[in-house]
């Protein structure tokens, strides 16, 4: 098993715009986190916990792998 650090990217920004141009604040309120956390996740500066990742995916009604993916 490779021990190289994985770069995890996400489609949150695109998915927000696909969902009636949902704002970061609206997404944050929907899952009960601060807007700064959404900003950090969106920019890839913070990798959310599995629970938060699933919550984000559930807001967009998408499977987890459609929202988060490993950047090769």
């Amino acid at each position: 098993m490779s021990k190289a650090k994985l770069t995890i990217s996400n489609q949150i920004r695109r998915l927000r715009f696909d969902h009636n141009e949902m704002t970061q604040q609206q997404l944050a309120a929907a899952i009960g986190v601060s807007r700064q956390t959404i900003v950090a996740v969106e920019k890839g500066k913070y990798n959310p916990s599995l629970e938060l990742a699933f919550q984000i995916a559930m807001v967009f009604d998408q499977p987890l792998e459609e929202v988060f993916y490993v950047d090769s």
Partner: protein
Amino acid sequence: MDPKKKNIIASLITAGIVGYWMYNQFPIIDMTDPIQVGQFLLKTIGVSVITNIVMVIMLSLLVGIFAGKEEKPVFDERDQLIELYVMRVILVIFSIGFVTTLGLVGWNNLSINMSLVVLYLCMYAANIIGDLLKLYWYR
């Protein structure tokens, strides 16, 4: 304004006021008298607690007047992680200060009274650095 940032700013203003208060108290206190040193440190803790409460109330009022309704406070997993990092930094700074103070007591004949003051100043500096780090990470 984010309530977390408001509390950090209140804490930093408090640190400034308490620092000024301590600076003015230093010449008055006889550092060779352990009773006076103990009273001084206890008074400093009291002053910082009261000042912090007053600052939080004042900032809440100012934010209410100038920025309208305050945001609802949210404490999520990232905040917990930041708190953890900041606590670790504070602990490291305080530990370095503690070991340095022990060294000064052991090899430089620093009095126990002064070592108490030095330890308090280490904690004071560690808290300021912790607040600044929080402000940086919360941005």
